[in-house]
C-alpha cells in the first residue's frame, strides 16, 4: 500500500521489544552444556581478540563452551547477517555480538531469539528490540566528558582542538562526540574551541592524512581527541614524525601496547580505555545468565559475573562495565593488552 514514514512511525515505535518480555528467576542455577558464540565486528582485530579471549576465559571457568565466528572485514554487514543465520541453524545457546550496523542485524537476530537463542550485544549495540541485553564498555557520557576533561587539563583549558573520529556512521563514536560537545559548553572550557571533526574511517592511512589536513588547515591547533584506537595510533605516528611533536597534544581511546612508545617519547601524555578483556568476560556472564534464565533483559534485574561481582541491568537492558582507566607514563608499564 501507499505507506509513508509518518503513517508507520507510530506502529514502529510502539512495537513491543522482543527481548524485554518474559520473566526471570534470579536464583536459578547456571545451566551446564551451554554454547556461547562470539560474533565480533571483525575477526583478527586485536581489540576484539582481547575481548573475545576474555569471553573464553569466563566460559571456561563456568564449564561452558565458547566459539568465535565472524567476518574479516568490519564493514561486511551482509556477512555478519549470514553468521547470525548460521549460528541460528547451529542452535547455539546464546550469541554475543558486536554489531556492525544497528539495524541490519535486526531481522536475523529476531529470528534467532524466536528460535530460543539468547542475544547479548557488546561494544556496539543494535536497536534495543533486537537483543536482550547490551554490555556497554563504559557509559557514553562518562567517556565523552572524561576525554574532554583530560585534554582540557593538559592544555590549561585554552586553544583550538579537533576530533579525529572513525567512520561517520559509527554509533558509539557519535554518541561520545555528542557528550564531548556538550561538555565543552561548560564555562571552564570557554577558551577551548572545537574547530573540526574529521573522519579517518578507522583506516591508518586515511586517519594519517586527516591529521595532516587538520594541522594544515588550523596551524594554531593545540589538541586532538581521537576516540578510536586506530585513529589515535595514526595521529600519534604522524605527530611523532612531524614538527608538531610535543606541540600538539593528543588524547583519546587507545590500547597501552599501541601507545606505549608514544607515551614514553612524549608525543602523547595520557589517554584512556576500558579493559576489553573484562568487556568480553562480562558479555559471556550476561549471556550465560540469560540462557540460564537468571535474567531476561528487563531493567533492574541483576546477576553475578563470577569474580567481577554483581551487575544490574539499566534501562533497555544496558549493563555498564564501569569507568575507563587513564593511562600515562606513570602506569603504562603495568598493562599488556
Amino acid at each position: 500500500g501507499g505507506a509513508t514514514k509518518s503513517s508507520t512511525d507510530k506502529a514502529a515505535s510502539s512495537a513491543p521489544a522482543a527481548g524485554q518480555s518474559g520473566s526471570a528467576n534470579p536464583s536459578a542455577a547456571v545451566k551446564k552444556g551451554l554454547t556461547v558464540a562470539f560474533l565480533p565486528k571483525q575477526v583478527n582485530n586485536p581489540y576484539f581478540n582481547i575481548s573475545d579471549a576474555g569471553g573464553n576465559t569466563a566460559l571456561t571457568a563456568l564449564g561452558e563452551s565458547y566459539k568465535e565466528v565472524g567476518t574479516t572485514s568490519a564493514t561486511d554487514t551482509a556477512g555478519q547477517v549470514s553468521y547470525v543465520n548460521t549460528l541460528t541453524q547451529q542452535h547455539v545457546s546464546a550469541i554475543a555480538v558486536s554489531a556492525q550496523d544497528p539495524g541490519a542485524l535486526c531481522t536475523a537476530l529476531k529470528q534467532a531469539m524466536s528460535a530460543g537463542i539468547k542475544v547479548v550485544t557488546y561494544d556496539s549495540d543494535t536497536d534495543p528490540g533486537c537483543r536482550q541485553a547490551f554490555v556497554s564498555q563504559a557509559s557514553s557520557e562518562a567517556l565523552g566528558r572524561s576525554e574532554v576533561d583530560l585534554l582540557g587539563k593538559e592544555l590549561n583549558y585554552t586553544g583550538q582542538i579537533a576530533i579525529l573520529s572513525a567512520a561517520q556512521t559509527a554509533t558509539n563514536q557519535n554518541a561520545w562526540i555528542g557528550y564531548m560537545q556538550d561538555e565543552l559548553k561548560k564555562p571552564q572550557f570557554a577558551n577551548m574551541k572545537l574547530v573540526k571533526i574529521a573522519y579517518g574511517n578507522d583506516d591508518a592511512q586515511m586517519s594519517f592524512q586527516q591529521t595532516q589536513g587538520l594541522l594544515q588547515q588550523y596551524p594554531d591547533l593545540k589538541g586532538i581527541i581521537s576516540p578510536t584506537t586506530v585513529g589515535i595510533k595514526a595521529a600519534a605516528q604522524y605527530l611523532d614524525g612531524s614538527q608538531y611533536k610535543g606541540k600538539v597534544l593528543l588524547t583519546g581511546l587507545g590500547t597501552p601496547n599501541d601507545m606505549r612508545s608514544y607515551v614514553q617519547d612524549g608525543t602523547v601524555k595520557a589517554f584512556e580505555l576500558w579493559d576489553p578483556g573484562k568487556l568480553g568476560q562480562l558479555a559471556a556472564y550476561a549471556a550465560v545468565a540469560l540462557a540460564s534464565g537468571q535474567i531476561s533483559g528487563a531493567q533492574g534485574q541483576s546477576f553475578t559475573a563470577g569474580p567481577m561481582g554483581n551487575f544490574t541491568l539499566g534501562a533497555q537492558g544496558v549493563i555498564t562495565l564501569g569507568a575507563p582507566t587513564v593511562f600515562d607514563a606513570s602506569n603504562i608499564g603495568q598493562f599488556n593488552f
Partner: protein
Amino acid sequence: MTVSTTAAAEQPLLSAGAPRALLDRVLRMRELAILVVLAVMLLATQIDNTSFLSKQGIKDLLLNATILVLVAVGEAVVVITGNVDLSVGSVLGVTAFAAGDLLQHGGNPVLAIGLAVVLGAGFGAVNGVLVGLGQVPSLVVTLGTLYIIRALDSIWVGSREVTASRLPSGYKSFGHNGLSAIPYLALLATVVLIAVGYFLRNYRSGRECYALGSHAQAAALAGVPVRRRVLAAFVLCGALAGLAGALYLARFGYADAGTGSGYELTVVSAVVVGGVGFTGGSGSVYGAALGALLLTSINSVLPAIGVSSVWVEAIDGVLLLLAISVDRIVALRIAGLLRSRARQARTITND
C-alpha cells in the same frame, strides 16, 4: 611507373623541422595533462591556505605519495605488458607484517627490507607463473591470489600486530626523516622510478614489454620470450609491492592482518589516471607515478582546504573521471593531428 623517388620520400620527414618535433614530443606526452592538473591543484590550494606548501607540507605530500608511487610503478609495468596485478594490496600487507615480525624480534632493518622484497617477488613469481602457465586473463588469476594471499596472511598473522613501540627507532625515523623537505622514502622511490623508467625505455627487454602488451601474438612471432617477460614483470611488481610493504611499516609504524586491504583499486586508479592504457602497450611509469602523486595529493588537499571528509570520496571519484577524460581527449586530439600530418606527408611525396 614508380611514383616516389628516394629523395622525395625522405624530404617531408626531415624538413618537418626540429622545433615542430619538439613541440610534438611535448604534446604527445600523455603525462603532461596530469602534470598540469597537479600543478593547478597544488597552486590553488596554496593560495587558499598558505601553510600548505610549507616545508612540513611538502614533506607530507611526498611521504604520502611514496608508497603508492612504488606500487604503481610495479603495477604500471605489469599493465604495460597487457596484464594486471590485483594482489598488490595483499602482498603489501603480508610483507609489511613479515618485515615487522622480523624487526620486533630484533632483526636487522636491512634484512627486514630484503625479506619483504624477496617475499613480494616470490608472490609475484606465483602470479607470473599462473598467468604464463595458462595464458589466462591475469585479472581473474590475481583476483584469486588477492583472496588467497590475504587469507593466508590473516591465518598466519591472526590477531597479532606490529606496533611502533616494538620497532627500532632508527627504522621509524627512516620512515619520516629526510634531507630538508625531501624524505628518504621519496628519494628511494625516485631512484626506483627512474631506474625502471630508464630500463623500459632503453633496454630491449623493456621495449619487449611494450611489444607484448601491444600485441602478444605478434610479439611471440617476433621472438619475444613472452612468458619470461610476463613473469619478470610480475616479479618486479611483487618485489616493489614488498618494498612498499617494508616502507609502509616504517612510515605508519604499524601492521596487522588487514594492512593494505583494498589498496589494489587505489593502485589501479593511479596507473589509469597516469595514462597507462589498460589494454597494454602504452603509457609510462612516470605517468603512473604522477597519477599516484595526484591521487594522494587530492587526499591531502581536501582536508587542507577544509572540505568535510563526507565529500572526499565523491570528489575523489569525480577527479578520477576528470583525469581519464582529459587524458582521453588529449589523445584523440593527437590522433587527429597525426591523421592530417600523414595526409600532408603523402601529398608532398606524390607531388
